[in-house]
């Protein structure tokens, strides 16, 4: 058993494994890059770089199984940790490599933390508006809001991963002891639009108030449009009353409202949302173009950040985000595009809460220091050897 463990550790820490992993990672990166011509970036990330295994179809016909980014990078991290740090021969000649390996592991750990704990989304503010939350661009959630007779409300949130699996005819049932009904979600489609049901569909009773969801193709990289999901929600009252069905679609501005005695229930499919630890008020948005060109010279937002009653004026512009309290706000867009002079502008901020935000910088410094040290050590050794070679040559000439 111990011998087997030793063997596994030996293989796991070997440079040969590092070589193989690098080749596989290179192929994966190359394929994932080319694939972006046909798929949108988000899908490519999920399929190639955030997966354990995948199948790549060469020419759309030949299936080739591949290790995904998550699995490769996990094995790679273990390989560096075992072979490049723990078992590595320690000495001056390997000091630089050791430091560089520590830097790479730091980077990988930072990436893992980011993948697990980072939240990101957008906040759109018109001039004069304030905001204290941001919405995900990719993730959705179903929210049930129970509004009591006295006006108090309580939210029950069903995250997307809980109903994502009901795409192919399946269903997901949700129940809560305080709610007077069970909710069944079916027919989730990542990109869909409601359409009127046809007569035979109505006769079959598969519609919801005369409508059905038309599943659409996922949006490709070439398109500027985005996926808008939809699903069918069915409410089964616990008191045995008749079930009610409705379509929930991402573009619906108002929730589906139902009444249970004095309690009103609102059900809404919306983008996943997070609260900010502060409020942002957009005072002014500035957009400048280069003279005679449509190219943007500058776009930036003059905002006021208010937290605990304290207000501070801040200028957010490209390459100069606002970092505060674990959250970073970036200037990412603006509108309306082609708006007439005097039109009220809006600013779009990318908002990211990433606990490992500064890890890449630290890792970069460690890696640079390690590689520089190693490079200089090798260079000095080479110069010494070259000096000896020249001395031998000179001696030979003198003897001759």
């Amino acid at each position, binding site marked *: 058993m111990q011998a087997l463990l030793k063997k596994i550790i030996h293989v796991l820490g*070997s*440079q*040969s494994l*590092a*070589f193989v992993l*690098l*080749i596989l990672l*290179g192929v994966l*990166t*190359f394929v*994932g*890059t*080319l694939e*972006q*011509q046909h798929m949108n*970036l988000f899908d*490519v*990330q999920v399929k*190639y*770089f955030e997966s354990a295994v995948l199948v790549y179809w060469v020419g759309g016909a030949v299936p080739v199984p591949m290790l995904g980014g998550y699995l490769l990078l996990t094995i790679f991290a273990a390989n560096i940790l075992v072979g490049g740090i723990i078992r590595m021969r320690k000495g001056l000649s390997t000091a630089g490599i050791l430091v560089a390996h520590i830097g790479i592991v730091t*980077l990988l750990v930072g*990436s893992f933390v*980011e993948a697990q704990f980072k939240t*990101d989304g957008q906040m759109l503010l018109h001039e004069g508006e304030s905001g204290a939350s941001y919405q995900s661009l990719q993730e959705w959630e179903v929210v049930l809001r129970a509004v009591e007779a006295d006006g108090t409300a309580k939210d029950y949130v069903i995250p997307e991963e809980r109903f994502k699996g009901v795409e192919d005819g399946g269903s997901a049932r949700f129940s809560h002891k305080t709610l007077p009904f069970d909710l069944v979600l079916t027919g989730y489609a990542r990109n869909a639009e409601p359409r009127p049901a046809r007569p035979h569909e109505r006769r079959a009773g598969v519609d919801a108030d005369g409508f059905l969801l038309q599943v659409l193709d996922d949006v490709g*990289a070439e398109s500027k449009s985005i996926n808008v999901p939809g699903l069918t929600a069915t409410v089964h009252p616990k008191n045995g009353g008749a079930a009610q069905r409705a379509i929930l679609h991402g573009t619906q501005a108002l929730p589906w409202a139902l009444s249970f005695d004095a309690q009103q229930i609102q059900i809404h499919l919306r983008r996943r949302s997070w609260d900010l630890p502060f409020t942002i008020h957009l005072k002014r948005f500035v957009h400048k173009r*280069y*003279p*005679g*060109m449509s*190219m*943007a*010279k*500058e*776009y930036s937002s003059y905002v006021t950040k208010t937290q605990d009653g304290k207000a501070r004026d801040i200028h957010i512009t*490209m*390459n100069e*985000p606002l970092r505060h309290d674990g959250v*970073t706000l*970036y200037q*990412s867009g603006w509108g309306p595009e082609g708006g*007439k*002079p*005097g039109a009220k502008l809006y600013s779009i901020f*990318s*908002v*990211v809460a990433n606990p490992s*935000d500064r890890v*890449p*910088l630290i*890792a*970069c410094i460690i*890696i*640079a220091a390690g*590689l*520089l040290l190693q*490079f200089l050590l*090798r*260079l000095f050794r*080479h*110069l010494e050897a070259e000096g000896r070679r020249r001395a031998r040559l000179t001696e030979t000439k003198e003897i001759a």
Partner: protein
Amino acid sequence: MRTPRLLSEVRFPFLLMALALAVASVFAVGVIAAPEEAAAPQAAPAWTGRWSEDVLRTVARIPVQDEGRVKPLHTWAGFALLASNHRRSCLDRDEEKLTPLEWFMDALFRPAHARGHRCFLIETSEVLDAIGRTDARKKKRDRYSYDEVVPTDAARAKLATLAQRLAKVAPKERTRVESGIVDLSNTIRRFEGLLGLLDFARLELKVGNDVALKARFDGKESIRFTELLAQAPELATEVRKAIAAAGGGGHTSPPAPLAPDVQAKSDVLNAAFLATQKSLPLGMFPPPGAAEPQWFAVRDVTSVAMLHGALADVHVDAMRSFEAMAASVGDAPQFSKHLDAYSRGVRELAETRGELGKIDQEVSFYELDPFGKSKVFYLIAFALIAITWLRPQLRWLELVAWGMLWLVLGLHTYGIVQRCLIRGRPPISTLYETVIFISAVGVLTMLLIEHLNRRRVALALTPIVGALGLFIAGRYEILNKSDTMPQLVAVLDTNFWLATHVTCISIGYCAGLLAGLIAHVYVLGKVFRWRSGDSAFYGAVGRMVYGVLCFALLFSLVGTILGGIWANDSWGRFWGWDPKENGALLICIVLLAVLHGRMAGIFGMFGVCQGAILAGAVVTFSWWGVNMLGIGLHSYGFTSGIHSALWSYYAAQWGVVGLGAVAWVLERRASAPQG
């Protein structure tokens, strides 16, 4: 809260658009009814001499605004001619070579003469076949004059119609000939804009027989353009009011006939308006106030003057100078006098706006042409080194080449520094600058390698690196068809990240390519059994490759991570698997794989060299290849038109690796114990 703004504060593109529409609507009636005799260009001057050095020197330093920046006319003319003729010179009818400024001055002041200049490179004669302009005397790829391409209005119309139809086809789906037709049509249109830039200055506007109108111009039968400008606001207002009073002219009813006096005013205004509308939209008149960033083109000046009469004195003077210059072509002293007046006025105005700063420096930079000269000197140095291969005893010649390469590198570096000073940017902010920077760093690295490891391998490759890099830069300039000192998109407007990430990653590119280049010596040497048995030589070359790969890894890895940190500051994420990011990552992965493969004993130095050649191909993919995918956030680096060159390069690299593999197998078989 927005407050009403003064005219001068209004965003100018909207203002100009509104003015143009307003002016057009005023003249809608006039366009329909304008008698042809309202305007008559003066007879073209018959002078056929050459422009004096003084005139060209003055013109070179006149500032203009184009592509969002103020630049000297020298630069503008150079790139305009380069875009149409693929070189910064052209031949006139008498086979005399013209500089861009001479070509520019001819187009402005002697348009009939300029129509004979061969300033259009047509890559394939099939383009002309398509518009029925086949010329049997010409080669398949040849240069043509305007008169040779579109000698008649019918030929011009045919080209325009065809190009218009093909413009609807997506650029990727056009054939080479179709793209050539669209490009030719655009180039011809730009040239026509240049030919017509000073039409207004040659214009004699017929006042007509209306007594009242004549009286406003001191009884003159015909007037100059600037004479009309003074009266333009009042006349335009009168015409507008008369049209409004007459009614009609909507979408369904024909325009009501105008009274003869109104028609006369409309005709003369219309003729003046039309005389400027085909002119090139080149910013030639700085607005008097610093608040308005956009310079006025000839057509803008006219529109503003006609509707608002708000033309600054300096602009009226400038327009008068052009009229005077147009009238004194061939009269050198008079022409120079008026040219100086115009140049002085514009430069003073630009200076008060703080926009004159680097104009003279930029002219000196392009006049010196440090990269063009460096390219030639690199080739000379290569020739000297080649002689030493034939005559190894000429040690002094090698030293001359060595010294020359350092001097050329100095000139090359001087050019880069000059660009930095002119732009106020670090060495690299555009794709073009990556090429000149990488070639300079490549030359420096090779010279240092030769200094450390005197095998004459790096020395021989040094001039190739320099000349090849500058050749590619020159080709890119032609392909790009525009100024290589452009304005930057907002995300690139940061000198800190340009100086750190971009410089670092470019040094990584450079080192990766150099390792691949040196590896060619090793692999091809083995393939062709050059110095076979000289293991010391191959050992030294292998060590060079290995050392440069380490150097490449240091800069590529640090540069890639710095890029991620920049992306984190700009876009809110460290890594987004964007094609450009993946390209940089691929370089790091390949370099790491080669080094780990060597350390693991999977392959020896031959494998390292094979890997270095592949790493060079991966660098090229990352540098240029991903740009052609046309996807991702790094859209400012998109490139097209280099497919064949790139694929030829990939094929050559795979070919060398394939040959190397065959040679390695054969060598192994030969050295294997028999029996």
